[in-house]
């Protein structure tokens, strides 16, 4: 997403610079030589079109909806481009350490899968929350969940995290369906 925003921002910057330059150029040319206008853009044609188009005409509404949609895409992309790194404690002054959420999730996932009676697990991790979804064919949620929560918490205590994320465990077991 961050690369996409950088690309978007480059395109937007180029569009803004071009629009500004063309605006200044056309207005100045028209001022200097009213008979020679337009210089590059067929703006008298645009003026006539806009002069004949009412605010409630369908083409204008479609254009407005498209513009609004594009604006929403920009907002979503800019919002999603934040950094999601998980901060670790500083081993010394002036040394910042982080790890990626994916790496943390992988660490927790390996740990959970290595536990007894766990057949599979999916983990999503962030700096605030770690969610574990484990499957087990042998143990019911009642027994397995406290055990997994405790062991994942112990594992996270061992990682020098700035703040320990809350752990939530869900166990999916056929034993609970009977």
């Amino acid at each position, binding site marked *: 997403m961050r690369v996409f*925003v950088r690309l978007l921002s*480059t395109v937007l910057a180029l569009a803004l610079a071009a629009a500004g330059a063309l605006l200044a150029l056309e207005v100045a040319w028209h001022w200097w030589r009213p008979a020679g206008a337009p210089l590059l853009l067929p703006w008298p044609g645009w003026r006539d079109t806009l*002069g004949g188009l*009412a605010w409630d005409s369908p083409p204008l509404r479609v254009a407005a909806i498209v513009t609004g949609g594009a*604006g929403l895409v920009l907002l979503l992309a*800019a919002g999603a481009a934040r950094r999601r790194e998980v901060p670790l404690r500083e081993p010394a002054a*002036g040394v*910042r*350490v982080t790890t*990626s959420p994916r790496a943390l999730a992988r660490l927790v996932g390996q740990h959970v899968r290595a536990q007894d009676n766990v057949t599979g697990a999916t983990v999503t991790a962030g700096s605030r929350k770690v969610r574990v979804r484990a499957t087990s064919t042998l143990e019911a949620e009642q027994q397995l969940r406290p055990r997994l929560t405790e062991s994942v918490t112990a594992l996270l205590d061992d990682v020098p995290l700035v703040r320990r994320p809350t752990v939530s465990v869900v166990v999916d077991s056929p034993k609970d369906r009977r």
Partner: protein
Amino acid sequence: MTKPSTISAKALARSYRTERTLTTVTGLLAVAIAAVVLVAGAGWLGEFRARRPVLDPLVLDWLGGLPPWLARGGAIAAGVLLAVLGLWWLARSLRPERRPDLELDHTDGRTLTVTASALAGAVRADAEGVAGVVKARVRSVGDAAEPALRLRLWLREGSDLRQVWHELDTRVLARARDTLGVAVLPAAVRFELGSAQRRRVR
């Protein structure tokens, strides 16, 4: 003098604040324009307004009534301003991140500079020597006045994160500081855990 912790926080990753802010502002503008057009078209600003043309002769007459230097001069100034803003934004988005050299001694008559690539290579070799580290990528970031190191370390699956975290400062960064003779060397480290070869189950 900026505090080392601030420099190292900046060294974590390239800042996207300006790009994100400007993209957000553009998005908000587009949404606002769309909303205004739809509201006007729906007749909420009055049925009369909804049926008027977009480029209203009333507005054009008002513009024509202004002194010509004001309307035209204003348009030209706005255009130049937009173009300058756009070019500045473009240059900012396209500019690659700097890799500053480390200047250790800049008294008169002699200079001692460690080039960015020499520094990065030395620290990388040290970092890859730490048990559990598979691969390391090191570069210098920031500017010449406030250089910092950015390290990205890939750890072997099952390696002890706490151990590596500890050794990183006591061995790798301490050695770099000693060699360079500086008291603090701001650094930002990013760990990638458990990036071993994928195993396939057949």
